């Protein structure tokens, strides 16, 4: 019986294939008959004027096809081979963490001077406050490291690695609300629909490890989920869907449906997938849909991940010291600390772009309590990741990025009391840091005014950040483009300048 199955590869003359057969015939008809030729003739007759773009497409200006664009990469020798981006979602306050403003102590409780605010619009959450009382950090700052960088007492562990960090105090964004601001940071545009940073990188650079996704996302389970995250933040936008980020979960199955179902040993899985892939290719021959290619690639990746993911997720081989370094949370899968440890393991496997999200930095009220909790959950593991990468020599070619989507206001949102206050969203200046491949260690770049309200030196826009990130990966941000709906798109849209002064 079983031989019978393989007499012909596919039994196409069955009712199930009727649709596909019709499609094949119609295509053949169109391409091979006079109608097809006629259409070509009409097309060339009217050329550009009637069909607009098709004229230029036919002319095929050299150096513009996707292949040409990808072939030109890398545009310069990359400094970084992998990126881990620790996204602090919610907008961490710069005042309590990095941007030390001692002069605020003398002004505590006074109204924010108009000369600083300059009539700038506030969010609906604090615009109706009768006063905007300036509030200094509740937490103390001390100088650390050879670089004598001021760091808050909330981050004692990060303070230990401060000589490895390149702290940028003058980042600014255009978006004042969470979702558009995060979308802006992750995709270069405030509206959903563009590819995320990781997708651009996997599209432009490809993979260094065939057994794991190029772009992996980890969301901590122990961040306060007051502001949501959507999978489109690591989406592929208009790029082919195989370039989207793959989220690893924290439960029993880090990647869903990767384990074989009960009662199935998986022995003939490879044969089944090969056959399915042939079928899919047949289908694709008829429809020409790139989504079919993506699906084929994803099946194959999933098959390889059946062995590679359990291997990389297993912490059995990690010594006790590792858990001690990353902190007690690191034994609890899905926490930020456990994700940082996992991040190191994935980076060791040459995963190109890792995006960690930790939510809960949105302290509109009860900021001192809230931010202390956040730091407790993240500080040690963040510092441990830097130390761990450094001792393993991976900081040589790994870029670590830490930052949120915006900063917070110098004035208190809500009531200011002796030991409690809140801060509203403030996109006009905030702090991020980078460390590792290609960035200068132990420096601080950019300055804000005494109120950390306006930037006084070296502003760095979100687009500039993206341009710099691509530069470190060997890509000229102006030349990695993708044509969609008649327009060429870039991660940096039509802007962005590489911040040369922070590069080694």
């Amino acid at each position: 019986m079983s031989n019978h199955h393989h007499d012909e590869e596919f039994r196409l003359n069955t009712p199930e294939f009727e649709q596909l057969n019709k499609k094949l015939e119609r295509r053949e008809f169109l391409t091979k008959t006079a109608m097809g030729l006629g259409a070509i003739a009409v097309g060339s007759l009217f050329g550009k004027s009637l069909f607009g773009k098709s004229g230029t497409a036919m002319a095929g200006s050299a150096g513009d096809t996707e292949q040409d664009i990808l072939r030109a990469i890398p545009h310069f020798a990359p400094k970084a081979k992998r990126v881990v981006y620790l996204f602090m979602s919610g907008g961490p306050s710069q005042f309590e963490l990095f941007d030390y403003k001692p002069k605020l102590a003398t002004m505590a409780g006074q109204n924010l001077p108009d000369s600083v605010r300059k009539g700038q619009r506030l969010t609906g959450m604090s615009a109706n406050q009768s006063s905007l009382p300036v509030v200094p950090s509740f937490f103390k700052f001390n100088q650390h490291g050879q670089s004598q960088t001021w760091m808050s007492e909330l981050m004692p562990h990060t303070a230990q690695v401060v000589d490895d960090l390149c702290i940028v105090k003058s980042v600014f964004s255009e978006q004042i609300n969470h979702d558009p601001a995060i979308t802006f940071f992750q995709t270069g545009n405030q509206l959903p629909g563009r590819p995320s940073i990781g997708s651009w990188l996997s599209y432009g650079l490809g993979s260094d490890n065939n057994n794991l996704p190029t772009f992996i996302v980890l969301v901590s389970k122990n961040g306060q989920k007051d502001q949501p995250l959507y999978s489109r933040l690591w989406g592929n936008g208009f790029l082919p869907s195989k370039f989207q980020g793959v989220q690893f979960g924290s439960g029993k199955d880090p990647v869903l449906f990767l384990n074989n179902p009960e009662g199935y040993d998986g022995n003939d899985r490879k044969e089944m997938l090969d056959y399915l892939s042939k079928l899919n290719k047949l289908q694709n021959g008829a429809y020409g849909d790139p989504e079919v290619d993506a699906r084929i690639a994803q099946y194959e990746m999933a098959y390889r991940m059946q062995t590679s993911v359990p291997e990389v997720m297993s912490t059995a081989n990690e010594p006790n010291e590792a858990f001690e370094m990353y902190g007690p949370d690191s034994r609890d899968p899905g926490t930020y600390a456990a994700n940082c440890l996992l991040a190191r393991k994935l980076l060791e496997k040459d995963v190109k772009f890792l995006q960690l999200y930790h939510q809960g930095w949105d302290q509109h009220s009860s900021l001192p309590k809230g931010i202390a909790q956040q730091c407790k959950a993240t500080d040690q593991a963040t510092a441990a990741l830097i130390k761990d990468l450094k001792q393993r020599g991976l900081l040589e070619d790994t870029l670590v990025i830490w930052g949120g989507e915006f900063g917070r206001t110098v004035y208190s949102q809500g009531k200011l009391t002796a030991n409690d206050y809140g801060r509203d969203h403030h996109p006009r200046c905030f702090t991020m840091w980078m460390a590792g491949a290609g960035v200068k260690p132990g420096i601080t770049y950019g300055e804000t005014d005494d109120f950390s309200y306006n930037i006084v030196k070296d502003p760095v826009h979100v687009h500039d950040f993206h341009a710099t990130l691509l530069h470190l990966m060997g890509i000229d941000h102006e030349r990695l483009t993708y044509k969609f709906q008649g327009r060429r798109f870039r991660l940096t849209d039509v802007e962005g300048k590489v911040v040369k002064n922070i590069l080694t």
Partner: protein
Amino acid sequence: MIFLNISTFSGHLHPLIVHLPIGFILLAAVFNILSYSKKHENLKSAVPVALLMGFISAVLACVFGYILSTSGDYDQNVLRHHEFSGITLAIISGILYFMATDHSGKMAFIPGKLFSIILVGLVALMSYSGHQGASLTHGNDYLTMQTLTRTVRDKPTSVDSAIIFEDVVQPILQNKCSQCHRDGKLKGNLSVESLQTLRKGGKSGPAVAPGKLNASELYKRITLDPDNKDFMPKDGKTPLTKSEVKIIKWWIENGDAISGKRIAELKNINIIIPELATYLGIGGVVLPAADERVSAQVTNPDIPMVTDTSLIGQLRKKGLMVRVMLRKPLMLDITLPVGSVIKAAEFKNDVIPLAKNIVWLNISGNNFTDGDLSFLKLFTNLEKLRLEKNPLTDQVSNNLIALKHLEAVNLNETKITDAAVINLKKNPAIKRIYTWGTGVRQVN
């Protein structure tokens, strides 16, 4: 949505229609003259028909011509002459038709000889009008006595002796721009005919501002996205090639926009010589045009510029991770996967041909011994080397002392001791040595 742009369409019909009256009226004149001979007497009756056709088509040509002229962009002086002579032509041909026709004997019949003289005069007027029209489309200097007597510049024999504007820039502009932008057909009020007119520019400002790329409208327009409505050349006309654009850019930045300057007298010629040589067709081996942005980056000059890149595919097939870090010169990052089946000797043979192109190498976790790694001496351009998790001892350091570009060595989880670090420090290039999980005790 398709808009029928009737006025532009019919305006563009003018150059087509305009040839009909030329043919008909010339035919009428030829028939009229031939009819003087006995043999062709019968042609006389064909003259009025030819004139009528000439008249009708001349009127049509006038109408379409008028529509075309409303698009502007023409030398108004020449246009006025063309317009006036064309309309006169149409009117006279109409009058002549009526004169040639016997309207039941009521019309005054003009003498045959006078008719012929007027008809020949009409042909002369037509020639004049036609010449004016041609001057509008092809330029005042298209058909002149100078065309007959003009001398062509000799082709320069070397790049250095070529004159930048006359030999290079002007021919590019004449080839690609002057169909629309020249004296007589000043689209956008711009002529590219001379340096003066280029600097004067057109409606949108100076076409060329010496040394100031941003202020040079010409450069802006030719480098826009081809789909932009301001992109030049318009309407699907052949755009400038990449190297032509590069030459123009370089000329604006360095050429001072002075005529008669030899290329050798200018600054920064090295970056543009390959393009200039190709453009001028001056022989020798033309180097591949190095990308400017890439060449701005300082790369190690010891890395060979020419490499057999087909080897990369072979290595990948074998399971090695080969990452191209730069194409010119070829810089590679090669990773031998941890626990690979490829043994040291085989690996060595596979990568030796690319040894000088490998700048990052990762052979960690592959059970390599000190002896296996003697081939590292040949990898003289290595910058980053990962040897961790191999059973290596202090001996391995001897292979690395002479690598003068080596910046970082990862010897984590090997059997090395302080002796290796001390030895490695003899190599002044090495900045970072990773010794985590080894017997190294001293701080380095």
